[in-house]
């Protein structure tokens, strides 16, 4: 469980911690802005916020380079931004604009930025685990060593078959995959624990011979340190590793879910232990000035505000884009009478 915020912390590298705070703040600002924009009707559909879980992608991605592929989930804004995608390209994608990272064809649930090694969020829980195993298998086929594939998923995913098949696969073939289970307590809108047998995600990984570490996923330093150990082992060719990060989803399953299934006060209490405020508190204890912390937060917010303004004015994709990138052979022929224009 979470440690008291006031606990003394070994060796606080304030410069590194400020960098991690900045990354978390950027993700937080992006998602809060995206939720507000959605609620204002600026773009359609819904999103799955990861507000409260920012320390996990930030702590892990601090140890990855653009050469390290990452596979994400429907709750993937944090992974995408921590991997290096620009908030402007991401916000434009949420807005469905041509300048979105996927040209407006994927949206939040299929966000991807291959230029930075972010090989896709996924609308199907657990499906990315197999794709991650395969991405790592390709490295083996090509004889490339030293690269790491990171695969994020929630605790709900551990009850799908791909969890067993993918972890077994990665261990059997000794593939360089870091599996990261973000245990936020919920499988969609149900408490994961009431529907999960046994001792949980890490125990399942260990039963397949995959060494694991379990951390307080709201403690950015703990995630950072654990990721260093696990990624290091994988880079040395020691095969897959598993990180279980206990965190908490401060919002509902989607931006439209008020999460009334939680007992009153639970989320409020968890807000007091969110990773950004804990990180800020630790920096204060280490002697960093409040103004410096506030400046980092404000800078993140300004960056996202600019992204929002860009997205609002960005052009829509051309209608023809609905029919491109389906396939090379037998590509679709638009058949609406009168052509594409509405």
């Amino acid at each position, binding site marked *: 469980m979470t440690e008291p915020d006031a606990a003394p912390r070994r060796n606080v590298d304030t410069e590194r911690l400020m960098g991690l705070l900045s990354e978390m703040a950027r993700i937080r600002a992006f998602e809060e802005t995206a939720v507000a924009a959605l609620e204002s009707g600026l773009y359609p559909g819904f999103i799955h916020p990861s507000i409260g879980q920012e320390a996990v992608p930030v702590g892990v991605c601090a140890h990855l380079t653009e050469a390290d*592929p990452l*596979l994400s989930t429907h709750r993937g804004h944090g992974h995408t931004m921590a991997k290096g995608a620009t908030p402007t390209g991401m916000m434009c994608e949420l807005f469905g604009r041509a300048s*979105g*990272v*996927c*040209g*407006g*064809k*994927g949206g939040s649930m*299929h966000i*991807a*930025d*291959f230029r930075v090694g972010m*090989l*896709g969020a*996924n*609308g*199907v829980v657990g*499906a990315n*685990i*197999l*794709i*991650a*195993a*395969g*991405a*790592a*298998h*390709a*490295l*083996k*086929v*090509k004889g490339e060593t030293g690269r790491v594939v990171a695969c994020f998923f929630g605790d709900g995913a551990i009850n799908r*078959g*791909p969890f067993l*098949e*993918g972890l*077994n*696969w990665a261990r*059997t*073939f000794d593939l360089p995959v870091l599996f990261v289970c973000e245990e936020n307590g919920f499988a969609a809108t149900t408490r994961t624990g009431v529907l999960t047998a046994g001792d949980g995600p890490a125990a399942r990984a260990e039963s397949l011979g995959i060494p694991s570490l379990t951390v307080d996923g709201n403690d950015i330093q703990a995630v950072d340190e654990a990721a260093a150990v696990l990624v290091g082992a994988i880079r040395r060719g020691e095969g897959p590793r598993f990180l279980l990060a206990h965190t908490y989803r401060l919002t509902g399953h989607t931006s439209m879910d008020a999460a009334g299934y939680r007992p009153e006060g639970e989320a409020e209490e968890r807000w007091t232990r969110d990773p950004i405020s804990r990180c800020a508190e630790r920096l204060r204890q280490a002697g960093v000035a409040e103004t410096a912390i506030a400046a980092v937060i404000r800078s993140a917010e300004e960056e996202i505000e600019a992204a929002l303004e860009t997205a609002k004015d960005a052009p829509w994709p051309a209608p023809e884009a609905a029919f*491109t*990138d*389906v*396939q*090379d*052979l*037998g590509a*679709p022929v638009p058949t609406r009478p009168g052509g594409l224009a509405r």
Partner: protein
Amino acid sequence: MTVMTYREAARRALAEEMARDATVWALGEDLGRGGIFGQYADLTARFGPDRIVDTPISEAAIVGAAVGAAMMGTRPVVEMRIADFALCAIDELVNQAAKARYMFGGQARVPLVVREPIGVWPALAAQHSQSLEAWYTHIPGLVVVAPATPADARDLLKAAIRCDDPVVHLEHKMLWGLEDEVPDATNAAPDPAATLGRARIARPGDDLTVVTWSRLVHDSLAAAEILRAEGRSVEVIDLRTLWPWDQDTVLASVERTGRLLVVHEAVTVSGFGAEIAAVVSEALFGRLKAPVRRLGAPRAPVPYAPPLEEQVRLTAADVTAAARAMLG
């Protein structure tokens, strides 16, 4: 010209592509022992276990891993053992492989081949006998291939491996042992766009067009021969690729003969024959001499007992009878 089996032609095609391109690899259950039909025989000895990969019985992982490996620049050839088992990996094929390029705005390519042995083989019963090609033709993003001859077992597999789209490659279990002449070195480097989506007129004729694929090409040719003795001239078109399918060749033939019979081993209802029938009827309505007809299996699972299996398995006699009825 060399005489070889459908199995051997396919085996050589994979070996040649693996020798040509180091990014081509194969994965599936029991491949290290040559695959359950021998279509991978001796390939491990030649290419090693890292390129002919024995996998756990994890169909979802086999296809899902291939998706990730394809996105990372390799060309995986996936063996599903029996087409029916591919249903355990439908998310991986339909939601992931078929859509990755599109939903990521063109950032991904998923050049994988999923080999699925299809069709009725004696006494394999309901879960080892299906022909589900129509499902795949319905999915945007997929290419669907069904070779009927040893030459095509080679050329279409090579083209499928070179294709940048995900390809479902359907090989009929009853054809593995079929022997025929395979031209030497022709089409040694088939261009996917020039090979896939092209039908073959397996037998020219004037009175009726039979469009078919896979095993039933051979039964349809036998039926055409029987009807020739009755003074009827039947054209048999081997479609070879179901998506994209060669509408030009089919329409030109039916425009000439005025009659179309579509024959497939799959269940008739919602089979791919329905698509062909609809397209031809829409295009040639006024020029047809008879209503378009489909011949496929009844909408029943494939049974075990031989006399029951006979009830759902199409034969040359069935094709002959259907064609004769149309010719009046």
